[in-house]
């Protein structure tokens, strides 16, 4: 994972086009994504054919059809394990990002704080998250807490880095303008620095949306009896590979849903285009 998700050049978010999406436009979108849809369908078909053609045993690799049946048979189990993971990922996402944003604000206004604590943030970041899980289980027990903390930790660093960069991205001319207007520091923060940081923040939040799910699942691997992570371990040990694959698909779907949720919010919030040159 790269620390700085976004460079200054690539900070131009796509602007939602105004107006009603017409049928023609929808069809255009469909045509645009047709190659991707066909490619995915082709891969699934190929997978099915390989499983059939080479008579691969189901415990080794189930066929797409077997996975589909696993969804139907285990709907209740999948659903009851999805909810805790969703909760851990969401709470971790909120907590990790909130702390990162607040810390970034502190860093921007206190260079001393940045000098003192930035290296610590880097050190925490460089510890493999999977190695942190057992430590956290020992520290805070085996409940929801370690999962939420790990989901939060995985979100924390990219958001911190991007938010610091975003808050510093206001141009010197803008700051001169605010000085000429005798604006207070609070006014400069709310009216210039914070809005200027939003494209940077959302770039990090989109990454965090998917990685928070990953964090929650990894945390559930360490001695947990619920959640998609626990289900993955259980299905593996019992050679219930169709269920295992179904769980993985659900986990991926969860990450995609969170990602799109953040994208939709971004499009609602950022209706402007940062100007490359004025």
């Amino acid at each position, binding site marked *: 994972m790269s620390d700085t998700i976004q460079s200054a050049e690539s900070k131009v978010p796509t602007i939602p086009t105004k107006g009603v999406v017409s049928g023609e436009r929808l069809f255009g979108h469909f045509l645009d994504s047709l190659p991707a849809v066909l490619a995915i369908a082709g891969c699934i078909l190929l997978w099915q054919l390989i499983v059939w053609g080479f008579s691969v045993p189901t415990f080794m690799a189930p066929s797409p059809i077997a996975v589909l049946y696993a969804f139907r048979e285990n709907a209740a189990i999948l659903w009851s394990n999805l909810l805790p993971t969703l909760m851990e990922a969401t709470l971790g996402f909120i907590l990790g990002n909130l702390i990162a944003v607040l810390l970034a604000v502190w860093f921007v206004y206190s260079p001393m704080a940045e000098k003192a604590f930035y290296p610590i943030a880097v050190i925490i970041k460089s510890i493999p998250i999977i190695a942190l899980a057992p430590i956290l289980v020992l520290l805070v027990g085996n409940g929801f807490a370690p999962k939420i903390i790990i989901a939060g930790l995985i979100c924390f660093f990219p958001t911190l880095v991007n938010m610091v960069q975003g808050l510093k991205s206001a*141009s010197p*001319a803008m700051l001169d*303008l605010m000085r*000429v*207007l*005798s604006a207070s520091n609070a006014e400069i923060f709310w*009216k210039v620095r914070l809005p200027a940081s939003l494209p940077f923040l959302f770039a990090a939040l989109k990454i965090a949306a998917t990685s928070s799910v990953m964090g929650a699942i990894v945390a559930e691997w360490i001695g947990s009896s619920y959640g998609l992570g626990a289900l993955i371990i259980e299905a593996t040990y019992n050679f219930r590979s169709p269920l295992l694959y179904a769980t993985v698909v659900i986990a991926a779907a969860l990450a995609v849903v969170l990602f799109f949720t953040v994208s939709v919010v971004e499009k609602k919030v950022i209706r*402007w285009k940062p100007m490359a040159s004025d």
Partner: protein
Amino acid sequence: MLDVVDTSPVPPDGETKPAVTVRNLHIRFGDKASEFTALKDVSVEIPAGSLVTMLGPSGCGKSTLLRAVADLVHISDGSIAVLGQQPRKAREGRDFAFVFQEATLLPWRNAIDNVRLPMEVGKRDPGATYADPEQLLAMVGLKGREKAMPHELSGGQRQRVAIARALVTRPRILLMDEPFGALDEITRDKLNEELLRLWQETGTTVLFVTHSIPEAVFLGQYVLMLASHPGRVKEFMKIDLPHPRSLTMRDTVEFIRITAHMRGLLEEC
């Protein structure tokens, strides 16, 4: 130099205080080891209601002088009085507005909300009156584009919004730092003409930095020419061309004679 009657709306000498008085101004940057003198012993008086253009080779400190008047640069020595007060007091009192080379619009605000920015921030005098942002946008030729976002406007239009924003506080002095430098020539000509019209209508004192000789002569009632290394005053001269001025004036013999004279002076700088 040229015996043309000056019809500009400046009150006769002695009737008003100067808008800006600069006395023995020194501005140095950097620390003792690597000190750089941007301005050396600059003294000048900007008459109230005048339009003064500042011209000089790059590095002559013309922008620095303007920024010092605006309290954006620390004064090393000497003094600046803006309407008889320290620059900081003038800034807090909203006596001047500043137009930058870049329009410096907040990209997340539409045109009219950008014009309203000065009404929302800073130490505001409760009795302060503002110009109507909608009328200002109409005055700079952007009627109907109030809700346009900055990225939907052209470079010239953005600079017009910036000028409207500067005028919303009804400043007595307008400080402009190469405001049209990044625009194409046609847009620049048009904005030059409109600035002259605006100046004559509002009676605002305008201090305008440029590196273009024709622009300095066309706009300026006075031209303050600076020399470089270190930045110092070379000349402060009156441009004896009648007002109102139109773009065609730039093709007259007088105009060309003045610009040629300026070019000669600049070569000595």
